[in-house]
């Protein structure tokens, strides 16, 4: 397994681990995770762009084209595992909180697949700040499941939790 020198995944501990079972082929789940035409439907309108090789760029853009998440591919095993750095582009966030890793693991489980999402950090992150991921990921994963199983994504209205915004502000991190 190839890894980037700058980021050693062994130094990261998962803070959030979510699992969902989806009645779809691994290929479809992989496509949905890596292609903008899918992500726009289940990921709050955001478009994913990823160069699927270790060291390749990973970004997510808001519907108006602005760069929201930037990162790079750390591990890539097509149809099985994708690990990327997943840094929200808010001023000073990366310096204050360190890098965020997001890993998707796809495992066949009978007729369905088990999709596991891990959000990992190389330091302790407060519950207030983690509340963003804890609120967002279940909605995103449920919407992804519904999209793949029915062809229609769920529209879930999402706002960043107040407690997260307050905690970020306290750390001097700019928020929109």
């Amino acid at each position, binding site marked *: 397994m190839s890894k980037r020198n700058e980021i050693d995944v*062994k130094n990261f*501990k*998962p*803070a*959030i*681990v*979510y*699992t*969902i*079972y989806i009645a779809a082929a691994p290929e479809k789940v992989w496509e949905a995770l890596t292609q903008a035409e899918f992500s726009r439907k289940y990921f709050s309108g955001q478009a994913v762009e990823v160069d699927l090789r270790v060291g390749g760029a990973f970004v997510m853009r808001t519907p108006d084209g602005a760069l929201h998440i930037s990162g790079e591919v750390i591990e890539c095993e097509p149809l099985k595992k994708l690990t990327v750095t997943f840094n929200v582009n808010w001023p000073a966030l990366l310096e204050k909180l360190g890098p965020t890793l997001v890993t998707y693991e796809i495992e066949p489980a009978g007729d369905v697949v088990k999709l*596991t999402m*891990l959000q990992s950090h190389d330091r302790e992150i407060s519950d207030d700040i983690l509340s963003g991921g*804890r609120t967002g990921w*279940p*909605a995103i*994963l*449920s919407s992804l499941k519904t999209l793949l199983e029915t062809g229609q994504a*769920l529209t*879930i209205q999402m706002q960043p939790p107040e407690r997260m915004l307050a905690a970020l502000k306290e750390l001097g991190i700019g928020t929109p």
Partner: protein
Amino acid sequence: MDEVFKALADASRRALLDRLHARNGQTLNELCDGLDMTRQAVTKHLGILEAANLVTTLRHGREKLHYINPVPIHQIGERWIKKFERGKLAALSELKRQLEKRDE
């Protein structure tokens, strides 16, 4: 979905979820610590929670860590609660919280 409701229909298992909610990513030893349950009982309950996809385990170095997985509960919420006006339910929960706080 049956498995989720069955798994939740047990106070010991709900207590284990509460412990993971308070601190995510615990080992079996940490989860057993201070609980009035045998290690075997905790293992059995964790197995039921994992089968219902309410707990996810993963290996981190030598340790097996347990994480709470709220995705099935979120799906229950989407299916049965959101339709019935979550806003009002949130207001009622808040009212209950405020009233109970005054009793303390």
